[in-house]
């Protein structure tokens, strides 16, 4: 009797388990967006570990709330020495590095200006020249001292904003973890704006659709893909599209390009460059991409205006 029932259940269970694929994945909310972790090998505990990595970096780079840890929010409240977690020290070190001096449109001290723009966007207003100039002046007299021993000290009144680098950095840490665990087949998508690609089954490329272009795809593996684009977060006022990316030289929220995609071997760098390139001229981009060893796609009016030589964009 019971045997009959269990015999009936057996094919059912095998049917159900066969229809579930070998991928283990998890969707979580970090950096104010959805992070999709997809592992094609490995175990659930790997997902848990990766969640921990994201959770930590998210806390550390959160400039809006107190998080019971010395994060960027705390650093921005004071001009005293602050001892921070090694990851935060690392991110700050990388963001303020002299390597980035050649970038004309990246400045981590945009925090206050960014917040003011966000406020005015919510009120459907444009920031006035005077407010912008005030903030720019503050930025010019602000900075960050890296004192070693995981100690930092902010100078001046401008807030430091790590939004342009947080996701990329987190993905770098995730890649380090996956390398240690010898996991090679994965795709970690942070809000569709920073993606870490491993390999697919059989060492194949992943197919990445380019949102800003019609029917266009990239075939990539083992790299980082970052984008800065107007497509999702913009406010239209007086016929102009205002972005969330601020030009740190003139304080404007109007970007030169509609979207930029950067393909790199290093996550935090791809993020920073995609933010910077959105305001760089095509000539500058050609020079900078060589200097930093990345590949770029520049999009204006839903069409490619520049693409690194040798980078293939597939049309289907």
């Amino acid at each position, binding site marked *: *009797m019971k045997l009959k*029932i269990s015999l*009936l*259940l057996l094919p*059912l*269970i095998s*049917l*159900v388990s066969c*229809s*579930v694929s070998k991928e283990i994945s998890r969707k979580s909310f970090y950096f104010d967006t959805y992070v*999709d972790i997809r592992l094609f090998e490995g175990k659930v505990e790997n997902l848990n570990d990766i969640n921990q990595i994201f959770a930590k970096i998210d806390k550390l780079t959160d400039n809006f709330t107190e998080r019971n840890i010395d994060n960027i929010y705390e650093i921005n409240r004071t001009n005293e020495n602050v001892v921070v977690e090694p990851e935060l020290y690392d991110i700050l070190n990388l963001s303020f590095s002299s390597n980035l001096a050649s970038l004309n449109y990246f400045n981590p001290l945009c925090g206050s200006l960014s917040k003011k723009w966000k406020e005015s966007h919510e009120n459907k207003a444009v920031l006035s020249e005077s407010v912008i100039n005030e903030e720019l002046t503050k930025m010019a007299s602000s900075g960050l001292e890296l004192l070693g021993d995981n100690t930092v000290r902010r100078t001046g009144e401008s807030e430091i904003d790590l939004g342009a680098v947080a996701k990329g950095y987190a993905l770098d840490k995730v890649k380090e973890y996956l390398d240690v665990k010898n996991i090679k087949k994965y*795709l970690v*998508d942070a809000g*569709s*704006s920073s*993606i870490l*690609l491993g390999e*697919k089954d059989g060492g194949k490329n*992943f*197919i*990445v*659709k*380019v*949102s*800003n272009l019609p029917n266009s*795809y*990239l075939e990539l593996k083992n790299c980082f*893909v970052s*984008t800065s*684009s107007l*497509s*999702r977060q913009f406010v239209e006022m007086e016929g102009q599209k205002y972005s969330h990316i601020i030009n740190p030289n003139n304080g404007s929220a109007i970007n030169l390009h509609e*979207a930029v*995609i950067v393909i790199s071997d290093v996550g935090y760098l791809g993020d920073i460059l995609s933010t910077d390139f959105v305001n760089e001229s095509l000539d500058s981009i050609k020079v900078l991409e060589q200097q930093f060893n990345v590949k770029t796609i520049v999009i204006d009016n839903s069409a490619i205006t520049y693409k690194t030589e040798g980078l293939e964009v597939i049309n*289907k």
Partner: protein
Amino acid sequence: MKKTLRNDLILIGVLLALIIGGLLAVLLTRKKDNLVAKIYVQSQLVEEIDLKNEPDHDFVIQGAKGKLTISIKDHSIGVKEADCPHQDCVHMGYVSETNRPIICAYNQVYIIIEGNSNYDARIG
């Protein structure tokens, strides 16, 4: 326990087991990302919509016996209005996952959602 009643319970038990198995199969094979909605009228594919990227809008399609107003909202698809007697398709509301077809029998229209196997991720 009366023999027939015992048989009834066994029957119901087996049926419930099968049903639960079936439900699991339907629920576990659902996909929620990179979805594409396909609209069929009289078994012909008339529209294919990339739900992930499509902005909210409405459009009208011609069914076997009347018109249907299809609505795309928040990455889901639904039937807003339909020329049909029972309005079952309208009552279904918006669907944003696979394994849940929307059917307008009167107009021989069905809308199915498939996990897009075209790409693995989207940038931007």
